[in-house]
């Protein structure tokens, strides 16, 4: 048996609203970086639901009424929502809405009868497609970002069709929030 497994994740992703929930009396569920953490406070042990490999970040979580399923919305090629079983940590369903322009689902809610899931798509966000928590290699110093020339190789997943060139300079018009995506304190990010 070899290979690395996650044992403990520090930090919490504070960019998401309502990102902490009780699963049972001792277990809480929250988002840290690109993972959903189920933390047992009595045993001080964490279990994880990792974000999809292709996605950039988790944008929203919602727990159903009987705490059996958690819906995790992620920003990937488009917005995608995965529903996981909180006991087995297995993926139960994937929801994709083709007509969405947006990549972000900023809020979700289960109905009380657990039959229906409500999702709110955010702003059209193609311009903010920057590498972040998903990629450990992308931890660039924030202050150096606006003017420094960034070789394209530093951004393996950042595809800018036609614009990508070795000496690509960050446009000054990039919205400020692009530079503050590294808020989470998990070990790949700091």
């Amino acid at each position, binding site marked *: 048996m070899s290979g690395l497994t996650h044992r403990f994740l520090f930090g919490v992703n504070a960019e998401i*609203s309502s990102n902490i929930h009780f699963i049972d009396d001792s277990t809480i569920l929250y988002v840290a970086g690109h993972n959903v953490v189920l933390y047992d406070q009595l045993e001080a042990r964490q279990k994880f639901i990792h974000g999809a490999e292709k996605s950039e970040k988790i944008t929203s979580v919602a727990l159903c009424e009987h705490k059996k399923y958690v819906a995790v919305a992620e920003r990937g090629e488009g917005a995608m929502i995965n529903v996981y079983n909180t006991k087995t940590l297995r993926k139960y369903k994937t*929801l994709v809405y083709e007509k969405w*322009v947006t990549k972000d689902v900023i809020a979700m*809610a289960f109905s009380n009868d657990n039959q229906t899931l*409500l999702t*709110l798509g955010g702003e059209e966000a193609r311009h903010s497609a920057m590498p972040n928590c998903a990629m450990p290699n992308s931890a660039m110093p924030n202050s150096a970002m606006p003017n420094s020339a960034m070789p394209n190789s530093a951004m393996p997943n950042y595809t800018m069709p036609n614009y990508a060139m070795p000496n690509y300079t960050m446009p000054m018009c990039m919205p400020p929030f692009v530079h503050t995506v590294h808020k989470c304190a998990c070990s790949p990010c700091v």
Partner: protein
Amino acid sequence: MTPFVHTCVPTGSPDWTVVCWNWNKSKALAAVQVSESSPCSSVSFSPLDASVIAVTGTEKVSFYRLDTAANNLRPIPSTPTTVTALCHVWLKVPSDHLVIGTDTGSILVYDKSTYLTSLKESPVNLLNPADPLNPEAEQSTENGCTVDR
């Protein structure tokens, strides 16, 4: 080679679309664009009537009814508002009231889709005590709410 200084990124119209799913079947039941440009921040179902949903955000407090037969979300006429809602929660008792916290520090109560009252104990009122020249604002109902409609 001159590096690009500006980048034109084609952007579609802003989205702000609420989608209702039957998540067991991975099927989108209904979708509606809830806002043209003003940001929305949260959605939720009424705890008592699973067909009523509330959407709040910047200058937005609106309600929709999910029609599962026709598979659409229809807006419920509601009191127009200019407040910026930061968060909201539904109450089950005495009926499905929606309580909204705003960026000015007031807490508003909606009964289904009609504006009912703002709470006297809102942070905005605690910081700025009521105007003595306007004692009517102090008038309180039995449940501790100030009615200023």
